[in-house]
Structures are given as structure tokens and as C-alpha cells.
């Protein structure tokens, strides 16, 4: 229809299954807040009389057809001048004429064609564009350019054995090399010097310190040789080392454009809210919401601040905040917490606390969120200390030997030892190992924030799981019927009745019963639902009552205590009940057995009630601690307590209620069914489907350390060869120039092969 009108039929020729979901149904006033001038100002990047530029994040973007559709917005809507999609970031940049079409209309159009922009409170905060990557690539480019030119200009020196007939040619080459090496030293090696200096100021010798020392000595001696005219120096090897290290750093710095690792409550909260003022509805930004104001929350909208219910039937889904996955029914005058989602009709609330002071947002006032995680130093840093010690003793030993035999050779030998024994191969093996592992984890849908997370995963002893949404699959509930078995016709009636309701239990019941062989759905004659209690439906030939025990008026109430039972009465005869249990992610039981075999201690912290206790005991065994009705603050405290016993804790959770615990844990993994969608601040984001591979992931992270170790031994062997030349005072520039790339390239190759091979063996 819409596509056809605008000649976008070719859309379907591009991809076999474009999978567009025309979500035509949305309350038209939902985006009304986008009319507010101050909100528009916060969202748009550029604004003038006839042009407005805005960038939206569209989590639904998933295929090439999406790009086509989004980039052809100007053919659907008159006012759009240009739209450009960025697939990896799942963003679209739209430039439009505000005199023809409003921002609200654009958002509504996007929502209509199935790409509802994710606009949250966070978007209102000023954006800072990161130029970090740009600078890294530029550094790499400069270092690569200078290195390759220096290498080329050094060839005559290598092949002639230091004798070039043409007058002045050798000197010219040397001076050009000197000039080319300066940008590498100043621009390229800057980050290494900065890191070394930071370490020294804290009193730590990190890996950058001996590298910085080696660079200073290499360049210093080379400059001295060139200026005094008695040698060619080692600038070819020196720039080469810096270039390779920059490649390593860039390789390790893998980023996922579409994923954000540091979300806080602002990323979840709506930007605008409907306020009732003088009996008139008005849309204001959430940030301006004040105590005492009356707000209107419609179906599927989130409550932005703690508030008291004034009017309407509140059926609040707190799954986001507490992990409890059944909506709670609230009465007038009761307090509703921010973060809950209304299911059902519109409700009116009086705000009692400002959004930033709410129950859930207070979690972010905890110290954990203030400081960045105090990451333990990588294991390569202590190694570099030993390395430095050994290096200095060799240098001193060489100096003493030559002091006895030929004092003139002391300085050349000592500098040669320090040049050749630079621990850059150790740094290279670590950066390339972890960089490649990041990619392999990413391919397996575990997205790590940075490389140091691999090391923290390898150290895990305790694994704490959240229940709802983490180890259970909220999409598929496990539905079991108990009672006199229902005929196919009866099932059809129940299904039809359940389909009318939006309650979570009804919808899981309906999706369980819905099958293809149902004929035309029976005509509905009467339907009434008491929110949170049950429903009555009359249709051709049957009267169906579904709901809790008290609602259906069942005499036998032995199961009435568990809230996830739906009792069924057809034509006033009690038939039995559906038990709707949590559906655990496939393979989770095997995972828990495997983890426990590998001596990991498992814990479960659930914000939900203890209805699932028996099932969980079966999965985790009798010894694993299980806790229910846990608040977000308690989760955080529990992890802290474990850590105080010097245990290394990994938290696996989802939702905002785990945000504090994820932050506090040594490794916080957020489980999400769609990695590009929302997940709280964490160290890693895992696709829910691969949770059962967690044991292999941990194994692999541990193997990573061994791989670095193997490569370290190899690089030591290269160093032994190099040092043996150096202590004899025979380190010709050509030897250094051969050893340097040979060691670097062979280490990079070995690392890549090993990481891929181990990954294959671990089934990743």
C-alpha cells in the first residue's frame, strides 16, 4: 500500500524476505511530546529556517532492504530532503524541511513503516562525537608511511654493506630517514610514552615502560650515529616496532557500533510525558517533570517517576525493575514505582518524586556507578617487570665484560642489548591474541567491552545468575494443563477467549494453544475482563471463564497460592487449570552441571517470587544458594559480600534491576535476546541463545592466557638470538632489520592460528 503508492515496489526485488512489519497501530498522541520546542532543540543536530537535521537510532534495522527503504524516505514524504542510513550503528540521518513536515510526523512515519526510533532521555543529553578512532587510524597511517619509506631508503645500506660509491648519497638517505622518523617518534609513539609515564607516576612498571626505554635508546643512538656520521642507525627497526605495536593496539580495539556498554536509566526512560494541567493535556520533557504534577500513562508506556495512582485500572509490569514477570494490579492511592510499564487503559498519576530521585534511579547514586571499574592490571605487566630485571642484568653483565676486555665497546653493546631486547613481542602477542579472541567471541554473539574483560572472565570463581529473562526465556512460557482433558473444540474456545486479553498469562496461553487446524474463530458474543483477575467470554455454544482461583470460583484451591495458574470453567463446569511456568533456556541444565563440575560456584538471585524454587533446585542442585524477592540494592550488596571474601564474581543478568550488580561484579554480562537493543551497563553483552555456551567461553578465555605464554616463549627465543649478537657487539642494522619483522610477523601468525584452532576445539 504505502510502498506501492510511492513506486517502491522494487524494494521487494532486492531481498527475498525483507520482513517488513508495518506496525500501523500506535496511539497517535504517543509522539506528541515531539512538538515541544525544547525537546526538538535537544534532539536535532542542526536547525535553520528551511532545514533540520536529526539522527535516530533504529534498533529494528536488520537487512539491506531496510537501508533501501530508509534511504528512500524522500519519495514517501514530501518534506524529507535526504536520509542516510548507517547500518552498523543502526542509525539513520534525516534532513528535512520543518516548514513542510514536523519532527513528530517524521517519527510517526518511521514508526508506521516499522522502524520506531528509540528516543530516550539519554538522547537529550549533549552528544560528544568520538574522534578517538580517527586519531588511531591517522597515527597508524603516518607510522606505516614513514616505516615503509625508511625501509626502502635503507635497502642500499643493507646490500652495499655500508659502502656507497656515489658521494653524498649515503648522507642524504640518512638525513631523509632521520626526518621521516620524527613524526613516528612524536606522533606515533606518543601513546606509548603517555602510558609508560602514567604507570611510573603510580609507581608501577608496566609493559610500556621498557618499551618506551627501548624506543628512546633506539632513536637516541640512531640520531647520534647519523649526526656524527659514523653509522646508519636502527631507525628502520625502531619505526617498524612502533608501527607493529600500533597495528596491535588498533586490532585489539574492536568496537561494536550498534552496542552500547554504558547505558544507565536515562537510556530507558521516555523523553516526554503527558501532563494534565487545568484539565488540558500537555506534553513536557521528563526532565521538567515536578513533584505534584498529574501525569497520564497509556498502554505500554513507562512510568517516569514514582507516583501515586489517582484514576484508572493500573496493571503494572515491573519485569524491567524487579524481574517479576506477572503484571501487578494496583488500587487507587497506591504508590507506583518508576520503571513500571502500564498494560491496559490510560491511568492518571500524581508524581511524588522527581524522576532523578525515584526508587530505581537511586541505584545509580551508589558509589559503584561513580567510579570506573578498578581493573586489575593485566598479567603481562608483572611479567614485564621480570623481563626488565633480566634485561638490565644482561646489559650490566655485558658492560662489565667489555669494561675488562675493550672499554670502547661498552656503550655500543649496552645500547644494542636494550634495543634488541625490547619486550614489544610480548605486547604484540598479548594484543593480537586478545584482539583475535574478541572477534571470535563476537562471532559467537558474546560482545565484550574491551580486551581486559577476557582476562577477568578467565579469573571467575563464582557465577551469579538472575532468573527472569536471564535463565528463563520470557518469549516462550511453558504451559501445562492439569485436569480433565479438553476436546479440540474446547481448546479452541479457551484460545479464542485468551486472545482477547492482553494479560501476560493470557497471551502465553493463547500462543500455546494457537494451532493451524483451528477453523474460523467462533464469533464473540460477550466479553468482559477484570484486569488482573480473569475474564468471561461468551461465544457460539460456550461460555468460558478464565482466571485466578477466586475469580473462577473454584472449590479446589490447592494450587491457588501460585499466581501463575489459569483456571478454566466452560459452561459453568470446572475443567482444570493451566500451569504457566518459566521456560528455561535450552541447554541451561547441562550448562549448570558442566559449570559445577568445573568447580564454579553458582548462585541465583531472583527479584521474582519463589514459585520456581523446586525447578531451580533441580537445575542447580541442592547446594547452590537460591534467593528470591531480592531488590536491586540487595543484589549489589550480595556481590559485594562475596568479593569481600576475596572471591572473583561474574554476574549474569538482564534488566535494570541487575544494573547495580552487573556494575559491582568483576565481570558483568548482560543477557539480551537482541544485542542491539537495551541492556544495562556491563562489561559484556551476550545473546540469550548462546548462554548455554558460557562454560566454553570461560574455558576459551583461560586458554587465551596460555596462548600468550607460548608466544612469549617464542619471542624470548628471538630475543636470545638478538641479545647474543648484541653482547658480542655485532648487531649490524641489517640483523636488527631482519629480526624485528621476522619476530613480529611470525608471532602474529602463530597467535592467529592458535586462537582460531583453540576456538574450533572448544566448539566456538
Amino acid at each position, binding site marked *: 500500500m504505502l510502498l506501492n*503508492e*510511492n*513506486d517502491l515496489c*522494487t524494494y521487494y526485488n*532486492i531481498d527475498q524476505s525483507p520482513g517488513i512489519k508495518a506496525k500501523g497501530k500506535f496511539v497517535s498522541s504517543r509522539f506528541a511530546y515531539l512538538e515541544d520546542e525544547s525537546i526538538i532543540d535537544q534532539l536535532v543536530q542542526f536547525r535553520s529556517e528551511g532545514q533540520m537535521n536529526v539522527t535516530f537510532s533504529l534498533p529494528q534495522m536488520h537487512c*539491506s532492504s531496510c*537501508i*533501501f527503504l530508509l*534511504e*528512500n524516505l524522500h*519519495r514517501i514524504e514530501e518534506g524529507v530532503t535526504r536520509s*542516510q*542510513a*548507517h*547500518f*552498523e*550503528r543502526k542509525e539513520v540521518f534525516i534532513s528535512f524541511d520543518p516548514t513542510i513536515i514536523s519532527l513528530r510526523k517524521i517519527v510517526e512515519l518511521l514508526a508506521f513503516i516499522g522502524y520506531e526510533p528509540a528516543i530516550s532521555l539519554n538522547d537529550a543529553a549533549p552528544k560528544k562525537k568520538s574522534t578517538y578512532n*580517527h586519531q588511531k*587510524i*591517522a597515527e597508524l*597511517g*603516518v607510522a606505516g*608511511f614513514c616505516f615503509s*619509506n625508511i625501509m626502502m*631508503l635503507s635497502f642500499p645500506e643493507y646490500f652495499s654493506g655500508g659502502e656507497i660509491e*656515489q658521494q653524498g*648519497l649515503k648522507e*642524504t638517505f640518512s638525513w*631523509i630517514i632521520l626526518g621521516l622518523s620524527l613524526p613516528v617518534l612524536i606522533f606515533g609513539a606518543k601513546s606509548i610514552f603517555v602510558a609508560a609515564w602514567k604507570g611510573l607516576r603510580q609507581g608501577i612498571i608496566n609493559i610500556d615502560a621498557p618499551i618506551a626505554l627501548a624506543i628512546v635508546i633506539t632513536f637516541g643512538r640512531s640520531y647520534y650515529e647519523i649526526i656524527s656520521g659514523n653509522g646508519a642507525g636502527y631507525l628502520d627497526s625502531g619505526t617498524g616496532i612502533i608501527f607493529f605495536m600500533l597495528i596491535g593496539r588498533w586490532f585489539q580495539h574492536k568496537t561494536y557500533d550498534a552496542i552500547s556498554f554504558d547505558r544507565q536509566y536515562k537510556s530507558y526512560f521516555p523523553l516526554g510525558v503527558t501532563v494534565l494541567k487545568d484539565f488540558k493535556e500537555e506534553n513536557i520533557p521528563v526532565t521538567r517533570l515536578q513533584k505534584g504534577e498529574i501525569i497520564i500513562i497509556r498502554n505500554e508506556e513507562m512510568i517516569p517517576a514514582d507516583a501515586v495512582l489517582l484514576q484508572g485500572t493500573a496493571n503494572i509490569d515491573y519485569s524491567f525493575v524487579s524481574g517479576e514477570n506477572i503484571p501487578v494490579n494496583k488500587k487507587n492511592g497506591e504508590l507506583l514505582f518508576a520503571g513500571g510499564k502500564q498494560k491496559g487503559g490510560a491511568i492518571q498519576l500524581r508524581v511524588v518524586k522527581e524522576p532523578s530521585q525515584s526508587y530505581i534511579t537511586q541505584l545509580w547514586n551508589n558509589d559503584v556507578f561513580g567510579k570506573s571499574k578498578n581493573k586489575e592490571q593485566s598479567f603481562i605487566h608483572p611479567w614485564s617487570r621480570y623481563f626488565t630485571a633480566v634485561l638490565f642484568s644482561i646489559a650490566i653483565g655485558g658492560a662489565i665484560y667489555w669494561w675488562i676486555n675493550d672499554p670502547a665497546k661498552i656503550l655500543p653493546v649496552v645500547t644494542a642489548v636494550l634495543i634488541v631486547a625490547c619486550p614489544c613481542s610480548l605486547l604484540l602477542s598479548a594484543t593480537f591474541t586478545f584482539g583475535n579472541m574478541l572477534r571470535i567471541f563476537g562471532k559467537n554473539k558474546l560482545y565484550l567491552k574491551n580486551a581486559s574483560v577476557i582476562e577477568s572472565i578467565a579469573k571467575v570463581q563464582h557465577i551469579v545468575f538472575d532468573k527472569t529473562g536471564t535463565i528463563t526465556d520470557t518469549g516462550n512460557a511453558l504451559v501445562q494443563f492439569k485436569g480433565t482433558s479438553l476436546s479440540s473444540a474446547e481448546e479452541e474456545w479457551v484460545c479464542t477467549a485468551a486472545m482477547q486479553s492482553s494479560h501476560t498469562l493470557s497471551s502465553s496461553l493463547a500462543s500455546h494453544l494457537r494451532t493451524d487446524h483451528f477453523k474460523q474463530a467462533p464469533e464473540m458474543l460477550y466479553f468482559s475482563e477484570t484486569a488482573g483477575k480473569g475474564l468471561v467470554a461468551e461465544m457460539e455454544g460456550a461460555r468460558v471463564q478464565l482466571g485466578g482461583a477466586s475469580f473462577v470460583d473454584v472449590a479446589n484451591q490447592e494450587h491457588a497460592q501460585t499466581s501463575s495458574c489459569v483456571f478454566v470453567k466452560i459452561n459453568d463446569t470446572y475443567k482444570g487449570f493451566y500451569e504457566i511456568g518459566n521456560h528455561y533456556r535450552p541447554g541451561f541444565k547441562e550448562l549448570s552441571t558442566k559449570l559445577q563440575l568445573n568447580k564454579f560456584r553458582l548462585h541465583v538471585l531472583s527479584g521474582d517470587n519463589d514459585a520456581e524454587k523446586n525447578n531451580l533446585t533441580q537445575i542447580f542442585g541442592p547446594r547452590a544458594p537460591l534467593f528470591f524477592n531480592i531488590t536491586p540494592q540487595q543484589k549489589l550488596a550480595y556481590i559485594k559480600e562475596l568479593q569481600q571474601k576475596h572471591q572473583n564474581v561474574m554476574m549474569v543478568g538482564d534488566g535494570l534491576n541487575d544494573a547495580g550488580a552487573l556494575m559491582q561484579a568483576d565481570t558483568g554480562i548482560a543477557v539480551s535476546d537482541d544485542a542491539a537493543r537495551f541492556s544495562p551497563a556491563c562489561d559484556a553483552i551476550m545473546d540469550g541463545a548462546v548462554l548455554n555456551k558460557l562454560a566454553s567461553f570461560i574455558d576459551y578465555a583461560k586458554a587465551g592466557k596460555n596462548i600468550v605464554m607460548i608466544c612469549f616463549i617464542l619471542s624470548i627465543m628471538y630475543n636470545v638470538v638478538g641479545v647474543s649478537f648484541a653482547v658480542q657487539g655485532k648487531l649490524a642494522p641489517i640483523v636488527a632489520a631482519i629480526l624485528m619483522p621476522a619476530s613480529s610477523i611470525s608471532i602474529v601468525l602463530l597467535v592467529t592460528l592458535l586462537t582460531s584452532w583453540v576456538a574450533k576445539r572448544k566448539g566456538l
Partner: protein
Amino acid sequence: MSALFILIGISLFVAGSFLAAFIWSVGNGQFDDDYTPSIRMLFENQPKESTTEKKTNQNKS
């Protein structure tokens, strides 16, 4: 052999201008998105035909 001095100068100048172009393109954001443009080029041959069709459609309605 003295031609070598000039040639080295020229080669460095040419290579240097490529480096400058590279740095400029990095700063300009040309390496920010390495996926979407590859898809976008597949759509490019279409606009002409569709604008004429659009006109005829508008005439009809």
C-alpha cells in the same frame, strides 16, 4: 646518479600527498561506515525510471 636525488624528492612528495589525502579522508569520516555504502550502490540505478512512473501515477490519480 644525481638524478636519484630529484627522483627521491619527487617520490617522497607523491607518497606524502597520498598520506595527506589519507589523513584528510579519515578526519572526514570516510572510514566510519564500511558496510552501508556497499549496499547503497545496488540501489543507485533506479531513480530515473521511477520519477517518470511517479509522474504517470500522479496523472492517473
